């Protein structure tokens, strides 16, 4: 059987266009063909997780059954009682498959059979749903809705990370014709912009230029202008590749009448690192903000465990970015990347406080704004150089 990874080649896109056409016509006439959509979803999941990837498909199947049972079980429990221990247990169980998958190679030296493409992203969705259930925000929860939410195929491999209540709200209603035409237009635009990003720009930066600068940087060894070039080229490749993918996922969702949240909003025009995280991989950073940082701060303040606001914020940032680092993978450069961003944002907060206090004395004009963008851009590009693991190859590879 053939196997097609999402958004990788023309065949996938042609199949998508053909399969989605009836759905789009239905939505134009105010109808959601739910059964047809289910068949399409199943077919595309089978394309990605069948054939040579059948082992991943089976892992996915086991995973979603386990997580759906967990979410429904916790929801049923939460209707009657609300113990903090049970909540913590539910969260631990929700992330257990991901933890086992990530830790297995370190223990056994072999990759885990539990893994499949997208496991980390699905885990975010599950944990978010458990947390909102704990808050009593999810009143109605059906097992097939959870399954549908988790298996929504346009975003299954790498997000954007949607939220259960938001997804349900979109899906339960059919957009008006006017609204849907707008969505359709935006969806098609996103997909074509995605082609430009992923298959032209990311291809140029990542496939054509990066190997060349990489070769020269390694040939030179140590710190060189080639290394600086590598940093910028890698940053561009990373952005256009992932932003391109995200545009596809969002565009396809729009065509299906679902307004999946966007992932990127011109990240490189940010004036500080805090703004950067509101523009870069947004569904991930908002997830961390809402489910880790804000909850942590809320918990600490409510129980009066720490007094100083600045200290609470700093510890919160360290927690957030360390978890993000570990989530990316258990290598030193991902963890350093996390620490680096935590430090950057703590410094940024200190600077913003200083700026607020000395508002009248500090100049503010077009030049300082450009300078801020320039500095932020370079701080970010350097973080991606750490993230790329190239420094590891450069300095530590034998």
């Amino acid at each position, binding site marked *: 059987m053939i196997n097609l990874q999402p958004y990788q080649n023309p065949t996938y896109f042609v199949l998508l266009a053909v399969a989605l056409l009836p759905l789009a016509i239905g939505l134009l006439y105010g109808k959601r063909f739910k059964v047809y959509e289910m068949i399409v979803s199943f077919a595309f999941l089978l394309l990605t997780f069948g054939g040579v990837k059948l082992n991943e498909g089976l892992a996915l199947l086991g995973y979603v059954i386990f997580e759906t049972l967990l979410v429904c079980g916790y929801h049923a429990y939460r209707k009657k009682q609300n113990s903090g221990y049970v909540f913590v247990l539910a969260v631990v169980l929700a992330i257990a498959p991901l933890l086992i998958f990530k830790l297995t190679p370190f223990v056994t030296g072999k990759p885990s059979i539990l893994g499949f493409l997208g496991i980390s992203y699905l885990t975010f969705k599950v944990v978010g749903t458990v947390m909102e259930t704990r*808050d009593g925000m999810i009143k109605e929860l059906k097992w097939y809705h959870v399954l549908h939410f988790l298996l929504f195929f346009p975003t299954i491999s790498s997000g954007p990370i949607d939220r259960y209540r938001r997804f349900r709200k979109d899906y339960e209603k059919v957009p008006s014709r006017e609204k849907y035409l707008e969505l359709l237009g935006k969806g098609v635009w996103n997909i074509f912009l995605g082609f430009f990003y992923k298959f032209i720009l990311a291809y140029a930066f990542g496939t054509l230029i990066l190997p060349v600068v990489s070769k020269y940087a390694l040939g030179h060894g140590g710190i060189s202008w080639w290394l600086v070039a590598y940093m910028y080229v890698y940053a561009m490749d990373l952005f256009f590749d992932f932003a391109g993918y995200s545009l596809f996922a969002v565009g396809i969702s729009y065509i299906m009448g679902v307004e999946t949240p966007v992932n990127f909003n011109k990240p490189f025009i940010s004036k500080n690192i*805090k703004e950067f995280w509101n523009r870069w991989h947004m569904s991930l950073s908002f997830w961390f903000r809402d489910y880790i*940082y*804000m909850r942590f701060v809320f918990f600490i303040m409510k129980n009066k465990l720490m007094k100083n606001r600045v200290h*609470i914020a700093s510890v*919160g940032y360290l927690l957030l970015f360390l978890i993000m680092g570990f989530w990316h993978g258990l290598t030193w450069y991902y963890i350093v990347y996390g620490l680096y961003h935590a430090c950057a944002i703590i410094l940024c907060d200190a600077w913003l406080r200083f700026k607020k206090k000395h508002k009248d004395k500090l100049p503010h004009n077009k030049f300082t704004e450009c300078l801020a963008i320039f500095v932020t851009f370079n701080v970010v590009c350097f973080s991606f150089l750490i993230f790329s693991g190239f420094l590891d190859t450069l300095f530590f590879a034998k």
Partner: protein
Amino acid sequence: MKDTVLGILEDLTGSDEVSKDLDVNLFETGLLDSMATVQLLLELQAQCGIDVPVSEFERSEWDTPNKIIAKVESMQ
């Protein structure tokens, strides 16, 4: 109630801008951040007796003083 909410916002933002312009976008202008948001939720609980879980906080629904006042009034 309006005054209580504005009082809390003034304390948190350290400016009276929030009382001058009730439609100012608190997040875009940087007047509120996540930290101040959590404090806002805790203050609303303490001073107005309304319980807002963090999950309920959808930024776009709470991003101006007017919207916050309306939310608080609807939750009482």
